[in-house]
């Protein structure tokens, strides 16, 4: 397939690995964070980190939307799902995220009508098929997914679907990156920037990272050669003493993003004063809620939610994993009490989560050989 096969070419991959080897300074340790969960997944699926020299370490960032949902928001969703007559819809991975008293799957087993959808449009279709029921869509995701929710809410308004509403948990990518960069226990040399978030927001919002923190950023695609090339571009910047935002994913990402998507998001959403992130705590202006113009489609305002804050489980070190301070397998419960079948922390739930990706693909590759 076009845009896929050529980015999985083994010969080109070997050449890039050789180039990367030539760019690193012996004795220096390089830590590069891939922000996006999609990159984490690709890195483990294709063994990208096995092609890197041992002194180039990939650190997994907070870019999996499922992994950063705090328990209290899961509990709020479950409370909505248990309301008589409600059909509660959400993406597949969200159903397995543990709240303080179980998951949405457990709620379904207990009688709640919880359904998995592939898109908000599917949830709207269910609402049209069941005009006598209230249909709630549990929206999660970064700026990649937020336009999809926004367009669906506009469509619900245009088509006068009154039994549809949305519990909005959308988050924005820049505030958590700034919070990470302010974290005293973090030492990074550069960022592999998120590819599909950038199709919406563009590359420009990441310019503060080189400007304020002196770290290079390379927006990257998701195929194995995309990621290898992005690592090479970061190392080339470091070797040359440069520090800027570069766009490796030019076949998809316009530098200024998608203005139509940004407009529709600005119409439907507004920033919350603060939003809680799993493991990272409250971050100012990092979450979205529905704007006053769309208040009638806001499930939180239509039904009310308990809104109780629940502390992360003590045994779980998702926060340190999300900040890249520890590797997934260094967590006390990794692979023992916490597995993809019975997750304690959210990083083990989604296949984009660092722990699940490590568990599924990489747990035997802790001691890498030099390429």
């Amino acid at each position, binding site marked *: *397939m*076009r*845009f*896929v096969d050529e980015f999985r070419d083994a010969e080109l991959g070997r050449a890039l690995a050789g180039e990367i080897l030539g760019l690193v300074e012996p004795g220096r340790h390089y830590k590069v964070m891939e922000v*996006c*969960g*999609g990159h984490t*997944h690709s890195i483990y699926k294709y063994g990208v980190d096995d092609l890197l020299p041992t002194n180039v370490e990939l650190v997994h960032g907070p*870019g*999996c*939307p*499922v992994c950063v949902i705090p328990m209290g928001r899961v509990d709020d969703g479950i409370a909505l799902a248990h309301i008589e007559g409600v059909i509660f819809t959400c*993406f*597949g*991975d*969200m159903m397995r995220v543990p709240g303080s008293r179980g998951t949405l799957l457990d709620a379904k087993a207990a009688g709640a009508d919880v359904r*998995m959808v*592939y*898109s*908000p*449009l*599917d949830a709207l279709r269910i609402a049209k098929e069941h005009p006598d029921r209230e249909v709630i869509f549990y929206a*999660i*995701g*970064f700026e*990649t*997914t937020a*336009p*999809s929710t926004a*367009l*669906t809410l506009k*469509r619900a308004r245009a088509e006068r679907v009154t039994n549809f509403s949305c519990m909005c948990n959308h988050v924005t990518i820049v505030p958590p990156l700034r919070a990470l960069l302010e974290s005293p226990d973090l030492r990074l040399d550069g960022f592999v920037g*998120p*590819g*599909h*978030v950038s*199709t*919406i927001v563009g590359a420009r919002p990441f310019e503060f990272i080189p400007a304020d923190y002196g770290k290079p950023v390379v927006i990257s695609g*998701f195929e194995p050669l995309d990621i290898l090339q992005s690592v090479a571009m970061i190392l080339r910047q470091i070797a040359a003493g440069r520090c800027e935002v570069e766009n490796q994913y030019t*076949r*998809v990402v316009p530098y200024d993003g*998608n203005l*139509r*998507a940004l407009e*529709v998001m600005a119409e439907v959403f507004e920033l919350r004063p603060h939003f809680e992130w799993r493991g990272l705590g409250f971050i100012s202006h990092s979450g979205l809620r529905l704007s006053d113009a769309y208040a009638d489609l806001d499930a939180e305002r239509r039904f009310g939610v308990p809104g109780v804050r629940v502390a992360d489980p003590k045994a779980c070190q998702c926060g340190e994993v999300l900040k890249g301070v520890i590797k997934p397998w260094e967590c006390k419960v990794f692979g023992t009490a916490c597995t*993809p079948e019975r997750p304690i922390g959210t990083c083990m739930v*989604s*296949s*984009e989560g660092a722990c699940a990706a490590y568990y599924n693909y990489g747990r035997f590759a802790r001691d890498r050989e030099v390429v």
Partner: protein
Amino acid sequence: MSCGAEHCITCGDDGVPMRVLRLDDERGLALCADGEGAHHTVETALVEPVAPGDELLVHAGVALVAL
């Protein structure tokens, strides 16, 4: 496009290349086929105008970019 144990495409900041088969101009929707031939209804508001045969990058039911 599945949310199986392997990969959750909708919440993984993931994009799926699809080809436009047919347009519903009135509703701003397109019938598209993914690489395996499976059909999907896709919102095209962010990438219009599109025509049958165009390739789109789709995330959570919305075309983000025309390839």
